[in-house]
């Protein structure tokens, strides 16, 4: 596929714990095309954040990437030196975190945290100190303006605690976008925010995406957010991708029982008059999983044919699902 910006193949990320090796990401394939917004959905512990932390090279011990290929513009990120990887982080692939309050350094001003991003990546800055400082200040103010923070010049001298929660989130986005990345990984960008501000922040990301022509990976557990903002969606469960496809198709006609369950448990998307049905049970422990469908214990459609490893199956129209029922002849 030529328009793939990011291509992840067979990614396996594990954490060595006292209880055993936890396989947080198990054979994940993912593709992000240029200019598109990919929604990544799943419960806590589904591996969605770890997958993209792996892409960023930010998995810390005791975690490690055990296998897989991560191609960004055709370059294998796993083969890069730490220095080369640092040059890509922030400049080509930027990330925002769930909670801006903890992601912004309390001891540094917003301006400093913005400036260091540009200092690290922007080669177009003038060489002389004074001119460089002025250019950075100007660009920083411009970025804050872009995310809708007024009187940006003054606010650059303030510390994160002097801003409201929604503003901090926007500042973090502004910092992430400061060097105009090709890919933005937004990890739960709205979870820590009030409902009214959630919409604003998501609109902001969508607008800037159009303006900068960048790709966005929107990691969330909220299918409603995905429905509104993403071109394609990737549903994860217990470290595996269980369903992918164009957002409208997946939400309109989910193929995997887990996706169906997710949709049925969302108030906004459930049909009027229909009861909200939570998915029974819990995500299995990711240690020593039996070689069977991981959703087996919670699946309302389970059968004996599910008691063996399940592959991703082509479900037509660019869709795939990890369920034997997608292929009728596999169900006996």
């Amino acid at each position: 596929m030529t328009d793939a910006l990011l291509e992840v193949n067979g990614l396996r990320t594990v954490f060595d714990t006292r209880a055993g090796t936890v396989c947080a990401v198990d054979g994940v394939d993912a593709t992000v095309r240029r200019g598109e917004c990919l929604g990544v959905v799943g419960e806590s512990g589904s591996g969605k954040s770890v997958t993209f932390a792996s892409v960023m090279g930010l998995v810390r011990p005791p975690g490690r990437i055990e296998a897989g290929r991560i191609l960004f513009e055709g370059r294998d990120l796993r083969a890069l030196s730490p220095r080369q990887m640092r040059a890509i982080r922030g400049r080509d692939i930027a990330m925002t975190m769930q909670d801006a309050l903890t992601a912004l350094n309390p001891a540094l001003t917003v301006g400093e945290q913005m400036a260091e991003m540009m200092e690290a990546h922007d080669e177009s800055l003038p060489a002389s100190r004074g001119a460089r400082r002025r250019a950075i200040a100007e660009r920083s103010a411009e970025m804050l303006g872009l995310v809708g923070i007024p009187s940006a010049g003054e606010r650059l001298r303030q510390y994160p605690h002097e801003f409201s929660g929604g503003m901090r989130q926007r500042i973090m986005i502004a910092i992430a976008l400061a060097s105009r990345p090709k890919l933005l990984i937004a990890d739960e960008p709205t979870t820590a925010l009030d409902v009214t501000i959630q919409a604003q922040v998501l609109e902001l990301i969508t607008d800037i995406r159009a303006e900068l022509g960048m790709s966005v990976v929107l990691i969330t557990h909220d299918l409603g957010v995905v429905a509104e903002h993403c071109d394609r969606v990737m549903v994860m469960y217990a470290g595996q991708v269980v369903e992918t496809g164009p957002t409208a198709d997946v939400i309109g006609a989910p193929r995997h029982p887990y996706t169906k369950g997710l949709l049925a448990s969302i108030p906004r998307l459930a049909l009027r008059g229909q009861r909200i049905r939570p998915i029974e049970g819990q995500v299995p422990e990711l240690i020593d999983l039996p070689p069977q469908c991981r959703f087996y214990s919670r699946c309302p459609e389970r059968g004996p044919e599910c008691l063996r490893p399940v592959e991703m199956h082509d479900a037509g129209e660019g869709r795939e699902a990890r369920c034997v029922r997608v292929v009728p002849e596999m169900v006996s």
Partner: protein
Amino acid sequence: MSLARLVERLLQLIPVLLGVSVIVFVMITLTPGDPVDIMIGDEIVTEEQEEAMRRDLGLDRPVHERFLVFLGNAVQGDFGESFYHGRPVADVIAERLPATIELTLVAMIIALVTAIPLGVLAAIKRNSILDRIATVGSLLGVSLPGFWFGILLIMLFAVQLDLLPVSGRIGYAFEIEPITHFMLIDTLLRGRPDAFLDALSHIILPAITLGLPMTAILMRVTRASMLEVLRQDYVTFAEAKGLARHRILFRHALKNALIPTVSVAAIETGSLLGGNMIVETVFGWPGLGRLVVESIFVRNYPLVQAAVLLYAVTYVMLNFFADILYTVLNPRVKL
């Protein structure tokens, strides 16, 4: 830092000092031993002479009266005369103070420049050999009593290796006219690098002994807070920004990690005051600490009183200073 807050903190000193005065006065009066007896020693005096001495020193009056007289004079800045020196207590203390301040400062510098880099290194290389050595070392550092460690250092460096002098501030051969009363500075100001090196060789062992527990504590605090900070989201976010490793460590992590270290350092400096008494005695350092110990032995009441008050003021001021530093380093806190 508002002026009102500053005044408030200074006013807080009053009850502290009053309390300390009462406690010291009571303790010293309850301590067995009589200053007049000690002064007389083996000499033969008549009872009238002894009474006269007692009267001169004001010791013939009841305790509460003595205390009120002391308070009244102290408020006016008069701490009385040292029984032993026959001179105002303030003068005697002022003479000995620079040696103590100099020793304390050098001990602090040694503690800071070893503890912070070690703590940071131990945190970055967590569970490495270096980390383990540093952790065990710091445990030893807080556990070893100063008098024992000091004597150990003397035995090794002064007696066995004959590298460093045993006691004093500077060799007898050097006559340095005081300017600042800080030996290390005066020798340089007088253009005597040879004397400076000699003074340095005198101060190094007592300073290490004095600074050891502080080094150990600061190392542990730095290590712990650095580990804590390195786990924070803002460090991950800084990494996600593709910043250089040194920038993440020093600008993002260390700046936050040092907040507790600095507060603890300021407070620990107060505990160096107590350490001074032991270290100065072991190393024959002519400072306030040894003066106080000697004064306690001879029941030199006025001097002990004044010195303890001075310690109390210093301690409170150091805590105050720690608070100020905390606000300077931590923009979230407004005093």
